[in-house]
């Protein structure tokens, strides 16, 4: 009996603890990937986000962080818990588009704000957009469109293109073809999670391509680049930044040197916010930030800037404050388009070696003030 009472009072206290945070400040629910193969991305987003919160000096922002294990069902459970039991005001953190599709529509339908630090599926940018959903990173197609624009301006006329056979892979090839004006020497869909690319590389060798475009995020990209470098083919390679971020490059090594990739951020973008971000991130975590870290950092700063003028309890004012995007982005100029997705410059970067560290250097702007192709389909 005594034990039961004790357990009951502990449960009540936990409930009370949950409720008392409502009275002041803001509660942020972050669901991101912190374990398993894709954990590097989620950890970077989290660390970038928390760095900005710490630097703001505000102690009235409570961040609840949970690990989705890269599983949509886990993410949905966590989201339900955060919305119903924890009563968060703002949600953020999801890395993968399939998880975002499972969580974001129901979160925004329940009146929560969602700030995406990474995933930008086309469905949420076009007809499925929502006034409470803001994407601080990019629409999924953007970096691929930039790669196509770069290929065109570099004078490539016969590209061999490949991506995994899943929605983001299909979007990647569509995005590339949207801005690339040359012909295609070949187009391959690989299997998701595939690690051996010998068959595809043989086809590239047998084709008369003058360039290769690939979208193979994470470990798939590491495998492809190492095998491609070892195959002796020396056609130029273009790709989005996802296979060339700071966390991956060290595992690819020399095989990545000289490859051109497209990104909305790089550590050498010349503005005071970015310089301070790169320096403090390195000091705090003892590693160079990746584009994911910059996205987490920008997301938190956007949130902080909106909180300066409005509280999430006044949804209309808070939404207007977010839309204004009145914060210093690590990317320099940053604005939201009509569908709450970024309008920004996207750069072409080249992989270089600085001392012992592989990193990227900006070599030009691939697309200036670029929005996305789906904004026209969106109406709130």
């Amino acid at each position, binding site marked *: 009996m005594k034990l039961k009472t004790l357990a009951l009072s502990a449960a009540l206290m936990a409930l009370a603890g949950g409720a008392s945070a409502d009275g002041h400040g803001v509660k942020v629910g972050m669901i991101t990937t912190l*374990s*398993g*193969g894709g*954990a*590097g991305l989620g*950890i970077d987003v989290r660390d970038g986000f928390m760095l900005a919160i710490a630097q703001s000096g505000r102690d009235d922002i409570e961040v609840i962080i949970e690990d989705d294990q890269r599983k949509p069902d886990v993410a949905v459970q966590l989201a339900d818990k955060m919305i119903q039991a924890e009563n968060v005001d703002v949600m953020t953190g999801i890395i993968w588009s399939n998880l975002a599709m499972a969580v974001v529509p129901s979160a925004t339908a329940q009146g929560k704000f969602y700030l995406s630090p990474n995933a930008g599926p086309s469905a949420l940018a076009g007809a499925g957009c929502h006034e409470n959903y803001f994407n601080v990173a990019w629409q999924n197609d953007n970096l691929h469109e930039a790669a196509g624009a770069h290929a065109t301006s570099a004078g490539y006329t016969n590209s061999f293109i490949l991506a995994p*056979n899943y929605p983001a892979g299909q979007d990647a090839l569509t995005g590339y073809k949207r801005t690339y004006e040359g012909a295609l020497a070949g*187009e*391959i*869909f*690989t*299997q998701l*999670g595939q*690690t*051996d690319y*010998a*068959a595809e590389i*043989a*086809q590239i*060798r*047998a084709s008369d391509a003058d360039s290769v475009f690939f979208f193979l995020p*994470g*470990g*798939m990209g*590491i*495998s492809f680049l*190492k*095998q491609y470098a*070892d*195959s*002796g083919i020396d056609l130029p390679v273009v790709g989005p930044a996802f296979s060339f971020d700071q*966390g*991956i490059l*060290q*595992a*690819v*090594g*020399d*095989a990545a040197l000289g490859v051109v990739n497209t990104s909305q951020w790089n550590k050498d973008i010349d503005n005071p916010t970015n310089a301070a971000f790169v320096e403090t991130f390195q000091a705090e975590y003892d590693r160079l930030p990746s584009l994911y870290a910059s996205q987490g950092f920008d997301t938190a700063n956007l949130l902080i800037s909106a909180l300066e003028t409005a509280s999430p309890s006044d949804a209309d004012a808070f939404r207007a404050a977010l839309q204004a995007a009145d914060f210093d982005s690590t990317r320099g100029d940053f604005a939201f388009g009509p569908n709450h997705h970024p309008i920004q410059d996207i750069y072409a970067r080249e992989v270089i070696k600085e001392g012992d560290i592989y990193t990227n250097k900006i070599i030009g702007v691939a697309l200036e003030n670029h929005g996305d192709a789906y904004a026209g389909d969106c109406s709130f």
Partner: protein
Amino acid sequence: MTTLLIIEQVLNGLQFGIMLFLMAAGLTLIFGVMGLINLAHGSLYMVGAFAAAAVAGLTGSFVLALMAAMAAAAIAGVLVETVVIRRLYAADHLDQVLATFALILIFSEGTRWVFGSFPLFLNIPAYLSGPITLPGGIEYPLYRLFLIGIGLLVAAGLGLLITRTRIGIQIRAGENDREMIAALGVDISRLYTLVFALGAALAGLAGALVGAIQSVQVGMGEPVLILAFVVIVIGGIGSIKGALIGSILVGLTDTLGGIFLPQLFKLFMEPATAQTSGSALASMAIYILMAAVLIWRPTGLFGARA
């Protein structure tokens, strides 16, 4: 589609199959001799790759890295066998699956704890990198030929071990009748530990060899594990010969299917649809192969037991 391209793809399929064999050989021995379903076999593959990457990073020697991979995986295997698996021989398969699945999670998060969340670097040594020209003018990566060579050597060595040595006789006897060889005075628990360590070392070797051309990261073992299970089902459980033939069949089907099915579909479909549906069918091809083999021979190609 030239002859050269086809020959190159056959080599690719062969190389993929031979690497699968290194995984499947250990798995089939463990399942055949001990009747144990070891889902954690993929984790031993990962342990091998991480050990190789760590040692290669420290010493710069690829040979040392390979030896470290086999040693680390064998040690991990012996630990797992004596601490966990030994208690499960009498249990039914569901308990074994649960316990070894738990081991996957422990190994994955443990590795992440020690090595961090970012993939590690492990590269082909300079003397094995780059392409060489084969007779007929095919440019083929030297390292992949090296993989085929090592795999065939291991297969030959295993064949000799199983058919020509005392340990091999005990292993074969253990497959047929566990109680009987225990009654005949063979130290069965020592034999089990030995077989487990051997299987683990082969998985570790495969992890290190493949890690050099792929990415060394947490969770790298599980996709290979699934294929290795397909291989031993096709080859017949417990049969090393079956594992070899099954691996090469799966390797060739997977590689050649990925190339030729989209081409085949283009004959009667629009190119874009042919590409998507051909790729989709190609990823099913090995499972269709497995189903076909099972219909034809329900115990697998070389399986003795029903």
